[in-house]
């Protein structure tokens, strides 16, 4: 089956062209073209934008703005984003990373969306043709794409290397699908106790979610086995893991505390 491709140099025009039913924005195409190849007849045409801002990475005064069409490979090629490299590297194999965009990752259903798990822990802001929103709000409402228009960029405080603890558990190395993905942005005080924590989980719902009970339980703890016990005990609170060919929901729930604990202590 063939589908019309509409290409716009302006983000606004591309966003407006998304309004009719069945028209889908084309990022790198690793999910959307795959769906069409698989026989998804709900997609009746593609819209894309070649606006240069979508391809740009800007780092100004510690704040990074990453265009929606920036690929994982481009993130990995930017030394200023070193703190995000382990997250970008977790997405697919090298060929997928050459195509997979930051914008597309925001919409990727579990078990995908590994980069978004990192962005959620880092409290990113999602910018769209029609305004901006905190990533959590964006994720909650992301299904209504036509109302929202296209995503143009994400912005976040540049994490120094090592600030984000990130773990993607997969069974096939080096490029398997996630069993569970965990990102934890922790700040420690002078006594090495956690003073703030933002923890995000992938595959523990249909889209990345925060683990707020564990975040609260970590405050005031040292990253030592006895101290983190309560946080580990509540890491699964509020989750509703997916079942897919890689792992059942039960399995994901069972291994989450083990890997969370390793991430904190490692």
């Amino acid at each position, binding site marked *: *089956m*063939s*589908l*019309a*491709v509409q*290409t716009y140099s302006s983000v606004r025009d591309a966003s407006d062209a998304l309004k009719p039913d069945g028209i889908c924005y*084309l990022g*790198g*195409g*690793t999910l959307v*073209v*795959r769906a*069409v*190849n*698989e026989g998804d007849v709900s997609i009746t*045409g*593609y819209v*894309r934008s070649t606006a240069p801002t979508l391809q740009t990475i800007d780092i100004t005064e510690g704040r990074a703005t990453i265009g929606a069409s920036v690929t994982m*490979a481009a993130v990995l090629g930017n030394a200023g984003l070193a703190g995000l490299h382990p997250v970008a590297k977790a997405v*697919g*194999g*090298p*060929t*997928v990373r*050459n*195509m997979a965009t930051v914008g597309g990752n925001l919409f990727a259903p579990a078990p995908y969306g590994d980069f978004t798990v990192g962005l959620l822990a880092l409290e990113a802001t999602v910018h769209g043709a029609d305004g901006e929103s905190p990533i959590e709000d964006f994720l909650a409402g992301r299904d209504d794409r036509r109302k929202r228009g296209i995503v143009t960029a994400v912005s976040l405080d540049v994490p120094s290397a090592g600030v984000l603890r990130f773990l993607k558990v997969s069974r096939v190395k*080096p*490029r398997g699908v996630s069993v569970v993905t965990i990102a934890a942005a922790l700040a420690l005080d002078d006594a090495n106790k956690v003073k703030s924590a933002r923890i995000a989980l992938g595959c523990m719902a249909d889209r990345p979610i925060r683990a707020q009970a564990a975040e609260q339980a970590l405050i005031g703890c040292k990253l030592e086995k006895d101290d983190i016990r309560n946080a580990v005990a509540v890491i699964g609170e509020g989750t509703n893991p997916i079942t897919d060919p890689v792992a059942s929901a039960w399995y994901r729930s069972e291994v989450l505390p083990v890997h969370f604990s390793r991430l904190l202590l490692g």
Partner: protein
Amino acid sequence: MARVPVQFTLNGQERAEFVESGVTLLHALRDTMGDTSPKGGCQQGACGACSVIVDGELRLSCLTLAETCEGASIETAAGLASEGVLHPLQRAIVDGFAAQCGFCTPGMIMAAKTLLDHTPNPTREDVIEAISGNICRCTGYEPIIQAVLKAARSNSQKAG
């Protein structure tokens, strides 16, 4: 269905063709342009058999739309041999029995070529990472890894 013009360089030659709108690069290459070296395995991005190089980067042609390649430079395995002489990667694959059914081979070679273009002296780990998006159901990978390392060595001997 509407046909649209696309123009790009394929293995060094300017090509201008009409393709069906929304068609993948894989189908445009195979069905319209007569280059059957990229293979359609899964059409899902999972096997790597369709891998081609677009503007120096490895891409899955099954998930790339032909229209997005307007003006690009595309390399496929069909363009590697020159005047009847195999490319060092092809030679190393043949000599090392690194192809059995051969279905994965063109994609594997393009993945390896991208690696050697950027990293002329790769480590074994570099090779494993570079071909990690390409599935081979026959060889068990080791002969392929060895062939890529051998091609890199023969390239660097020539350069030196």
